[in-house]
């Protein structure tokens, strides 16, 4: 039996967020080819036309819009109630959520309301026999992978961001239909949004919890050059770390030190800049999921443990990398 999938589309401005496009592709994979299972995309809020049009062209079977200004801000309880109500109405078997902060926040809430299982942080998945779905999810900060088999008749699936490709445009576009106004009954009232701060002024993550770490070593040649790393970190929302050579020289406080005598970290992405890779440093970061090394010495031991290496002048590479990341992340 094929899944009947409801995929929730989040927007930023007039366009769906990238993670929602990824989710749309996954929805198709789960439902099987058109005619087997059905993929319904749902959009909530106002001025949905452009986004609905984009999604309609990405291989879904239909798009439902709920034009209601209540959904212009994100309130978990309200959104969860709406999505669960539509899933009930459509007799969906899977609700698919994008790998966004809001998507993550919705999963548990929808699952209770819809009486379903919930699995989040999915990096890969495959529909199995008898309606079962098997998913793979990184756990322990990417230090291990867990495979979960889902046998529940209804399930909320949350995806990991950047784990799936964006589907190719398809034609003809799926039909778009406006849903009748939703009656959701009494819901807890959410707070008032009083402001928004763009990420530039945001609070940087803590080293031990950061999903991305940019770390600097002796190759930076002086404390003033950490500015290069700060800009790279800002472009990625990353925390900044350092090798022992750096903290011992007083370029950065001891709390920045990663290694045997400092912190052990295991982010998704670790970018080692100007770090040669003494064992004392490696033991503190070896369990990172992806390691990038940028060092002028091609024989530096750091390249033995890195996934990707750039042997070059960090003073040229790092600014170029910051610019490129800003470009692709659109900030």
């Amino acid at each position: 039996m094929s899944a009947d999938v409801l995929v929730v589309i989040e927007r930023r401005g007039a366009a769906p967020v990238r993670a929602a496009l990824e989710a749309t592709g996954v929805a198709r994979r789960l439902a099987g080819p058109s005619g087997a299972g059905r993929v319904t995309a749902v959009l909530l809020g106002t001025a949905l036309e452009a986004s609905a049009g984009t999604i309609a062209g990405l291989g879904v079977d239909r798009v439902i819009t709920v034009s209601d200004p209540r959904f212009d801000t994100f309130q978990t309880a309200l959104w969860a109630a709406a999505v669960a109500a539509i899933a009930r109405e459509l007799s969906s078997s899977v609700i698919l959520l994008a790998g966004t902060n809001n998507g993550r926040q919705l999963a548990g809430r929808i699952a209770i309301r819809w009486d379903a299982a919930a699995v989040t942080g999915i990096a890969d998945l495959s529909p199995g026999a008898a309606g079962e779905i098997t998913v793979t999810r990184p756990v322990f900060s990417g230090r291990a992978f867990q495979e979960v088999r889902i046998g529940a008749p209804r399930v909320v699936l949350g995806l990991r961001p950047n784990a799936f490709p964006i589907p190719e445009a398809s034609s003809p576009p799926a039909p778009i239909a406006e849903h009748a106004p939703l009656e959701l009954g009494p819901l807890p009232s959410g707070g008032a949004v009083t402001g928004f701060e763009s990420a530039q002024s945001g609070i940087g993550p803590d080293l031990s919890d950061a999903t991305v770490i940019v770390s600097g070593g002796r190759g930076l040649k002086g404390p003033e050059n950490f500015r290069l790393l700060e800009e790279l970190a800002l472009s990625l929302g990353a925390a900044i770390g350092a090798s022992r050579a750096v903290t011992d020289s007083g370029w950065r406080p001891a709390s920045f030190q990663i290694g045997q005598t400092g912190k052990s970290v295991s982010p998704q992405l670790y970018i080692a800049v100007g770090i040669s890779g003494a064992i004392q440093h490696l033991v503190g970061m070896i369990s990172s999921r992806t390691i990038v090394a940028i060092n002028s010495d091609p024989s530096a031991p750091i390249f033995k443990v890195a996934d990707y290496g750039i042997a070059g002048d960090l003073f040229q590479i790092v600014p170029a990398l910051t610019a490129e990341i800003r470009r692709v992340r659109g900030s």
Partner: protein
Amino acid sequence: MVDFSLTEEQKSLQDLARKFAKTEMLPVAAACDRAGRFPEDVYRKAWELGLMNLNVPTEYGGSGLSVFDQCVIVEELAHACGGMTTSIIANCLALEPILLGGTEEQRKRTLPAFCSSYHLASFCLTEPSGGSDAGGLQTRCRLDGDHYVLDGEKCFITNAPHASLYTVFATIDPALRHKGITAFFVPRAAEGVVPGKDEEKMGHRASSTSTVKFDHVRVPLADRLGAEGDGFSLAMRTLDHTRTPIGALATGIAQAAIDYAADYSLKRHTFGKPIGEHQAIQLKLANMAQEVHAARLLTWHAAWLIDGGQRGSLESSIAKCFASDAAMKVADDAIQIFGGYGYMKDYPVEKLLRDAKLTQIYEGSNEIQRIVIARELLTHYA
């Protein structure tokens, strides 16, 4: 029923100490060692958490822990830095004579200050003329009305430049040897108390050590601990209580050496495999493990005896002597396993050797411990 397992309470104390060691001590240990810096911020934090006056009973505001509990904590602290641990537990040593020999009035007058705010105290026994020959000390105390007048110099005094109170051992007459020794507590503020400059040491470089000069220092009669001539026995009973935690301190250093070496042996490859898979390294690691295991159990046993009310002189001497020798051997082996890297200051093991060395020397040199052990042994055959 003999039981070698820690209670849940002891495990909690161990967790607390381990966490403090890892988050507060370890990150600054290498830098303090290199610079010879006394990290007062770390010591203040240790005090705030209650890790400083472990032996002071709760009625005076201390932690009121048994010797066994102290050992559990001290081993964890020393795992991160032996030198800092020595400075953290120096109050235990300095205040123990007041606990053992002070009147209730004296205890109430001195101890609560150390528990209600951060203060350090120093134990002043050793003199330039000799540390092991405590009976031969030269610092004089002379009764003058309702005061004693202290004259002399002490050396190798832990925390002395930072202390606000000194427990001092002096003699009414050097000719009386042990029988003339008398104990006092003397505030730093007393006129004529002059701590010397911080010594440059081989290890324990985060700790502070200096001489203390007593130059016509007037000490009220009310600040004498016990009677005239009770001092030697008081010093020895004090050391009976504090010697065992030194065994734990050495065990902590040794355990750190094993942890670094074993971890390294799995990461470092030679001849196509991790060096930990070579028998040469395995034999070394096995010996190290035996040393540390024995050191810990000897320490625990001595602590258990003392907490049970026995004097434990023999057992605490065995524990201190064995554990400190073990720490030296194991730290030496760890450096050997690290090879050339082990000799480099960028790696943490050479510090362990330098820190371990002091544990063979202070709180009764290992030679003195062996004399105690042999004498005790021979009494059973005489």
